[in-house]
């Protein structure tokens, strides 16, 4: 649950949420007996209404002195936020950027008050992991100031927003937290006809398609450009089309195509139900249906997908092609794929999955052992390597399948484990003849004299099935031996998705002590 604080009455926010008494911001942040410290919260959100924070100067043309005073008040507030972050590390903290009212006593171009305040917030973010900026400015631009901000309810009950404003704020906070946790989706599965181009390739032929640099053909080209840009952020594209493959290949030779045949990590062009094809692709890529977003202009196909695979996100599709790009960005990308930060691994993911598809085809022809030899794997282990902290945290957050304990940590926590003499953070870098995969596994070990506990151990699904986990465990034991550790205890905590890791500890030579507890002597 998110705990909200702010300088306006936040009671009308969507439930579930916790709301502290308003205008108690400083007390809530600093007093260890306040609700921000005593309630179990998944995240804290601070909504600062610019109107109530700036009072009269929100509508004036404030001079240098008043601007400086406002900036220093905001700095004091951020210092208190910093204190809270230090005391409650690991709890994500959200704060909005400020939007000044579009009504002022001068018609002069507004001075830089708003920019200076938001610069403070952004500079603060750069210094604090776990502090996320809730883009209120974007919401106000999208929905309009008058629709979200209310003077009436502010006069009647210190309620600064309309119900639409509160709902937008709640949704945005939830979305931001989802993307911070990396629980966004990973694959965009697209239909071809009337999505990538206007018209049906099987009927109209490549020359008859609506795809061009002018008029409505440009709407389809712009949509393809947006998809290509999304692919570059690490989202995989999959093509699901009911057509003859030769026809679709002809369409891909159209001179106005932006996306190329190879931009798709997988393609299923046949007459099978799209849900069956999507399920097969999911298996090939080692992902669950909940990693997919499916877009199709046909309401029948959308409905069949929703019924057969309810975990796939299936947004509505615009009937007016001129809306394609805006619809795609606001209804597909923003809610499902937006991230708070991109890591190098995110950017390399599409290529990596394409290589995985090549590898899994190679695997079908060979037995496992010769396939693994053929891969020519190179593994490298790092211990407490600070530049790998962000990726290690991301692995703890995102890995659901090969994960022994599914303990989630943020970057700050991983850094603390790295610095502490009572714990080790180990990471594994992977490379094979198809290319580099980057850091694919991480483990956190807690040390106590001659014994150690494996707190967290996970392996990216991109390298499951290559026995990499065994090599990693051997390296962990080596590192522990150097530190004179004799026994390593480990547990396997089953979840709905980590069955793939259930036999690993026994296979790696651990003895079972109780239901979930295992132990191994290090020699």
């Amino acid at each position, binding site marked *: 649950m998110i705990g909200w604080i702010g300088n306006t*009455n936040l*009671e*009308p926010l969507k439930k579930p949420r916790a709301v502290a008494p308003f205008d108690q911001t400083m007390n809530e942040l600093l007093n260890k007996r306040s609700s921000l410290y005593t309630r179990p919260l998944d995240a804290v959100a601070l909504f600062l209404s610019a109107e109530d924070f700036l009072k009269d100067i929100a509508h004036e043309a404030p001079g240098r002195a008043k601007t400086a005073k406002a900036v220093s008040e905001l700095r004091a507030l951020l210092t208190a936020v910093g204190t809270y972050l230090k005391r409650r590390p690991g709890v994500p903290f959200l704060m909005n950027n400020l939007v000044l009212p579009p009504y002022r006593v001068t018609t002069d171009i507004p001075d830089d008050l708003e920019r200076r305040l938001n610069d403070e917030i952004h500079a603060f973010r750069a210094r604090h992991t776990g502090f996320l900026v809730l883009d209120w400015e974007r919401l106000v631009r999208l929905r309009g100031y008058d629709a979200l901000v209310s003077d*009436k*309810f502010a*006069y*009647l*009950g210190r*309620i600064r927003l*309309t*119900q*639409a404003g*509160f*709902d937008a704020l709640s949704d945005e906070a939830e979305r931001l937290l989802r993307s911070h946790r990396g629980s966004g989706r990973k694959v965009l599965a697209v239909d071809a006809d009337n999505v990538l181009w206007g018209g049906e390739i099987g009927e109209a032929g490549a020359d008859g398609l609506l795809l061009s640099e002018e008029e409505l053909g440009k709407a389809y080209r712009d949509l393809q450009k947006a998809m290509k840009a999304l692919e570059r952020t690490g989202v995989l594209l999959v093509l699901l089309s009911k057509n003859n493959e030769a026809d679709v290949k002809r369409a891909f030779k159209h001179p106005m195509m932006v996306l190329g045949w190879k931009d798709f990590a997988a393609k299923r062009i046949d007459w099978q139900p799209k849900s069956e094809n999507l399920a097969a692709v999911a298996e090939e890529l080692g992902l669950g249906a909940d990693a997919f977003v499916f877009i199709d202009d046909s309401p029948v196909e959308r409905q069949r997908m929703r019924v057969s695979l309810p975990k796939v996100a299936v947004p509505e599709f615009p009937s007016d092609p001129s809306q394609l790009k805006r619809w795609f960005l606001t209804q597909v990308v923003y809610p499902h794929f937006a991230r708070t930060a991109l890591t190098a691994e995110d950017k390399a993911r599409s290529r990596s999955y394409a290589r995985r598809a090549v590898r899994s085809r190679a695997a079908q022809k060979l037995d496992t052992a010769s396939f693994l030899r053929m891969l020519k794997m190179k593994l490298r282990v790092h211990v407490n390597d600070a530049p790998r902290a962000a990726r290690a945290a991301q692995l703890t957050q995102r890995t659901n399948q090969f994960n022994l304990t599914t303990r989630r940590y943020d970057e700050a926590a991983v850094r603390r484990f790295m610095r502490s003499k009572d714990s080790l953070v180990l990471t594994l870098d992977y490379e094979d003849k198809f290319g580099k995969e980057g850091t694919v596994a991480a483990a956190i070990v807690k040390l106590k004299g001659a014994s150690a506990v494996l707190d967290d151990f996970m392996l990216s699904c991109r390298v499951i099935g290559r026995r990499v986990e065994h090599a990693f465990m051997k390296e962990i034991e080596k590192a522990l031996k150097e530190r004179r550790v004799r026994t390593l205890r480990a547990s396997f905590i089953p979840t709905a998705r980590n069955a793939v890791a259930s036999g690993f500890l026994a296979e790696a030579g651990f003895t079972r002590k109780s239901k979930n507890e295992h132990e191994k002597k290090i020699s």
Partner: protein
Amino acid sequence: MNTKKRFLETAARALGAKPSRLTMRSTRAGVGGWDSLGHLKLFLALEREFGADFPANKIMRYKNLGQIYTDLVKKAR
């Protein structure tokens, strides 16, 4: 759904009451969640649901749901 039912359901959600317990004769005294904050939440919700705009000076004068509904229907016309 007819306007009257939608009105009562919106009011019930805003006041944290069961829709079946509300009627057009319900007053502030008779509904638990209808305190001064609940009163404002009721108008926030109605403005959102029906796209209506109630003037501030009138909001504080309504005594029961029927009066609010009468004005809401007038605005919708």
